[in-house]
């Protein structure tokens, strides 16, 4: 679709270079660790080496002898202020610092405050903690057994390790279909615990002014406004009321959901600043980050499809055990403990579905952040796309063909899914056709047949995902009661330049560019003249932040609506300037002209100047608007990914030879940024597919607590991505946009897993667990007698 605006205005559809990049590329970004304040102190954290045990004693005396160490804060110290526990966003509770028991390895045990980072680290090494180890509960299935020790003894009356049960769909109707169906396929799978592993770890700089009772927190957070409110609710009793709290989220080096929750380190830093009356900085090191927070996934799923003999899907049934670790500290909307898992019916039309999730406590750090994923959509899509392939193999159909025969047809939109969603728009066949054409699907199948005859292992994997994002409509979505709208405030200056502030917070998504393009599209002001600001709760309008691909669907829409309000006012000014009535004006981006007399015109800049210098009689001066956008529905981007893998029969290594990604995210704001999002998301999809996992041994030791063992893909492992797109606008979003940040992370792992299974299908293999490490593949090859 050709852009509606000129290259000078650079509205939607232009691949405008990112406005934020000059500072990032020159190393001039302003990240949390770049902040320094006079008199600033450092916090470093003593962490538990064991997964479960009683604290017998904490001896701080040697630490306090170290020059520069000023204080050691323990749970007992915080208890005096009632700050040793905090609520999670899911209305569970979590220790800030323990008073008697540690519940997972790397748990925060004490905070050492010192005049330098080095002294703080020396202090941490000198704090002596005596533990009495207890046998931890690591396996979530064992955690549910009757004789399992109850972990959350802090909860009165708790007699087991079960957290909650969630279900969606009509169980009885689904079961009936399963009883009578021609074909039932079943696959058990684990989407393991992984880590967001962003370049920047978590940290903050807490600055409490004891004279004014005012707290400023510079903090790596994706949701600064929500954090401010949470701080006010948690620490209101010690005098921190909301008007005295300012949260500033500076440049963020990757968030991916890991920087939504409140971690104990933030609270300890704030408590230390309040107690000492000095600024206190806390920055995690890499191993702390990989061991203590920002964990995602960990769903054990048992999925079944009931189908006709020809492969027409009739029903889906999924039973899930969710390992949440020590606390349910994920950051999902309140009513959605299992997130948007009920998107699991995916791109396929069926009569019934039933999904259930049971959440479990174990002695692992709290998990479940929505890692580049709209709340459990990754788990749901992986599950469905894997078991659809199992069905295709079972009924002897090509996996692409079986998908096509089950797609929700494009005429069926808006489509009511059996689990309660109203999909806004889609054309799944178009994306499939394009992906097949780009990769040369039929030729690849022929090549595979030849290679298979020669004993070579090559697989083709297909994934046709449907995402659900943009949380969300206030009737269904809130976090701690706060509705999940988002906001924009646009102010046009007299010279026709503008500042636009939003309730979200970019962590690399390019908001400073795309939001400016949205304003440019609607107002005709050049995007280069629109300055975008986010992240400071003292200046930005209230919003719930950036995660779950919600920025474009919510704050982006708010920006468009605010710009339209401004345009409406500008039209009145233009009519005044041109001495005609408003109805006699034509609008094309940037210019009002008189109908039938196009040379009689004024620019949006003229209107801006007049708004301050020559407004119509009776009109309020100024040109600005604020919009809080409550979306009427979620958006449902989709796509088809096809990849080709080769498997080395000697080593079991999987090489992704080609990967075609066709995405449909509705109308596109900046094609270059969309492509960048997809490249990044695909790379973050190879990770969990082939390399990444945080495993624990039976003692609760994290076995991938450094980059030596936690393998994130590098340029070496990354194939040359081939991307394409189709455009099916969202009918309810003001710009027809849907959001794209997470589609690729969601769609890539099942495409790769399906390709590996496809390469091995003739040997009777129906499933391989991710990450598909060489040793896992080699075991299969050896078992099937084809290892070289």
């Amino acid at each position: 679709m050709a852009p509606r605006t000129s290259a000078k205005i650079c509205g939607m559809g232009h691949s405008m270079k990112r406005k934020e990049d000059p500072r990032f590329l020159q190393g001039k970004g302003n990240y949390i660790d770049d902040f320094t304040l006079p008199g600033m102190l450092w916090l470093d954290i003593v962490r538990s080496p064991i997964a479960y045990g009683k604290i017998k004693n904490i001896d701080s005396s040697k630490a306090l002898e170290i020059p520069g160490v000023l204080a050691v804060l323990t749970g007992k110290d915080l208890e005096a202020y009632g700050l040793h526990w905090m609520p999670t966003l899911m209305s569970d509770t979590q220790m800030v610092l323990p008073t008697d028991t540690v519940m997972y390895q790397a748990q925060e045990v004490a905070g050492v405050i010192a005049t330098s980072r080095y002294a703080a680290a020396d202090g941490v090494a000198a704090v002596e903690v005596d533990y009495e180890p207890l046998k931890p509960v690591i396996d979530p299935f064992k955690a549910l057994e009757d004789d399992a020790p109850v972990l959350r003894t802090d909860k009165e009356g708790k007699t087991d390790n079960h957290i909650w049960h969630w279900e969606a769909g009509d169980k009885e109707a689904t079961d009936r279909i399963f009883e009578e169906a021609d074909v039932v396929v079943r696959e058990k799978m684990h989407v393991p615990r992984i880590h967001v592993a962003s370049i920047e770890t978590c940290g903050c700089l807490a600055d409490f002014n004891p004279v004014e009772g005012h707290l400023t927190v510079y903090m790596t957070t994706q949701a600064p406004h929500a954090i401010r409110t949470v701080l006010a609710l948690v620490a209101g009793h010690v005098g921190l009321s909301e008007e005295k709290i300012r949260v500033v989220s500076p440049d963020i080096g990757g968030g991916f959901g890991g920087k939504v929750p409140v971690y104990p380190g933030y609270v300890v830093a704030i408590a230390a600043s309040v107690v000492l009356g000095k600024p206190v900085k806390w920055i995690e090191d890499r191993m702390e980050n990989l061991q203590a927070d920002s964990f995602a996934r960990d769903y054990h799923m048992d999925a079944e499809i009931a189908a006709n003999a020809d492969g027409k899907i009739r029903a889906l049934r999924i039973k899930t055990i969710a390992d949440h670790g020590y606390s349910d500290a994920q950051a999902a909307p309140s009513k959605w403990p299992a997130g948007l898992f009920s998107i699991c019916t995916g791109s396929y039309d069926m009569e019934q579905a039933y999904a259930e999730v049971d959440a479990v406590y174990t002695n692992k750090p709290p998990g479940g952040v929505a890692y580049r994923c709209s709340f459990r959509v990754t788990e749901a899509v992986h599950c469905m796309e894997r078991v659809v392939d199992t069905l295709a193999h079972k009924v002897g159909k090509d996996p692409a063909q079986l998908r096509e025969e089950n797609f929700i047809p494009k005429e069926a939109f808006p489509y009511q899914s059996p689990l309660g969603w109203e999909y806004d728009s889609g054309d799944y066949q178009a994306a499939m056709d394009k992906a097949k054409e780009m990769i040369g699907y039929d030729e690849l199948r022929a090549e595979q047949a030849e290679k298979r005859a020669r004993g070579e292992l090559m697989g083709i994997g297909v994934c046709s995902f449907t995402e659900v994002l943009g949380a969300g409509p206030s009737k269904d979505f809130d976090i701690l009661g706060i509705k999940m709208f988002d906001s924009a405030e646009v102010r046009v200056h007299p010279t026709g330049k503008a500042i636009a502030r939003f309730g979200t917070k970019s962590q690399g998504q390019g908001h400073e560019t795309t939001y400016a393009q949205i304003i440019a599209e609607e107002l005709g002001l050049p995007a280069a003249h629109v300055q975008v600001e986010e992240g400071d709760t003292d200046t930005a309008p209230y919003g719930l932040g950036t995660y779950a691909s919600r920025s474009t669907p919510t704050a982006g829409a708010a920006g468009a609506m605010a710009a339209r309000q401004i345009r409406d006012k500008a039209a009145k000014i233009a009519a005044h300037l041109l001495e005609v009535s408003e109805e006699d004006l034509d609008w094309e981006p940037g210019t009002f002209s008189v109908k039938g007399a196009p040379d009689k015109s004024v620019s949006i800049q003229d209107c801006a100047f007049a708004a301050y210098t020559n407004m119509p009689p009776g009109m309020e001066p100024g040109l600005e608007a604020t919009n809080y956008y409550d979306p009427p529905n979620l958006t449902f981007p989709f796509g088809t990914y096809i990849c080709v893998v080769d498997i080395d029969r000697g080593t079991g290594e999987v090489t992704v030879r080609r990967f075609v990604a066709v995405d449909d995210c509705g109308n596109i704001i900046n094609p270059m940024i969309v492509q960048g999002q997809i490249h990044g998301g695909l790379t973050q999809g190879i990770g969990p597919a082939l390399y990444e996992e945080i495993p624990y041994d039976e003692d609760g030791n994290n076995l991938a607590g450094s980059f030596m063992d936690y393998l994130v893909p590098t340029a070496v492992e990354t194939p040359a991505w081939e991307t394409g797109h189709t455009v099916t606008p969202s009918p309810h979003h003001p710009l027809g946009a849907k959001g794209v940040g997470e589609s690729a992370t969601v769609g890539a792992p099942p495409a790769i897993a399906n390709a590996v299974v496809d390469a091995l299908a003739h040997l009777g293999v129906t499933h391989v667990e991710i990450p598909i490490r060489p040793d896992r593949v080699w075991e299969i090859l050896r078992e099937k007698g084809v290892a070289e």
Partner: protein
Amino acid sequence: MKIQDGFTIDAPAADVWALLSDPERVADLLPGAKMGDRIDDNTYSGGMFVKVGPLAVAYDGTVSFQLDESERSVQVRARGRGKRGMGTAEMTMTSQVIAHGDTRTEVTIDSDVVVTGILAQMGRGMIQVVSKKMLQEFVGNLTKALA
């Protein structure tokens, strides 16, 4: 983690037992071990330095010995805390001296090792290998001492 090991040495069982039942001499022969003060009849303070791949951990703690003269067996229980927050280690090791004729002696070693913290996370796969290597050095030192 349970580790079973052992060795056979060309020396009379009585000589081997005399050495192995003397904690201070054992500590001298064990690479990385340092014996401290005697706390009671069977217990000493002590230190142990272990290098596992890229990790070097210095433990401070206690070690106690239970001798069974009639069985020529010794049970060693060691408990240490790693310096600089490097986690903890606990070991229970039972060794028995078995005579094979007058000049050959077998020593069996059954250990149960529990490590926490960084060594457990990162060195897990290497602990058996390292323990074997330490034993080899120990046997080498023992052979020299008995020669």
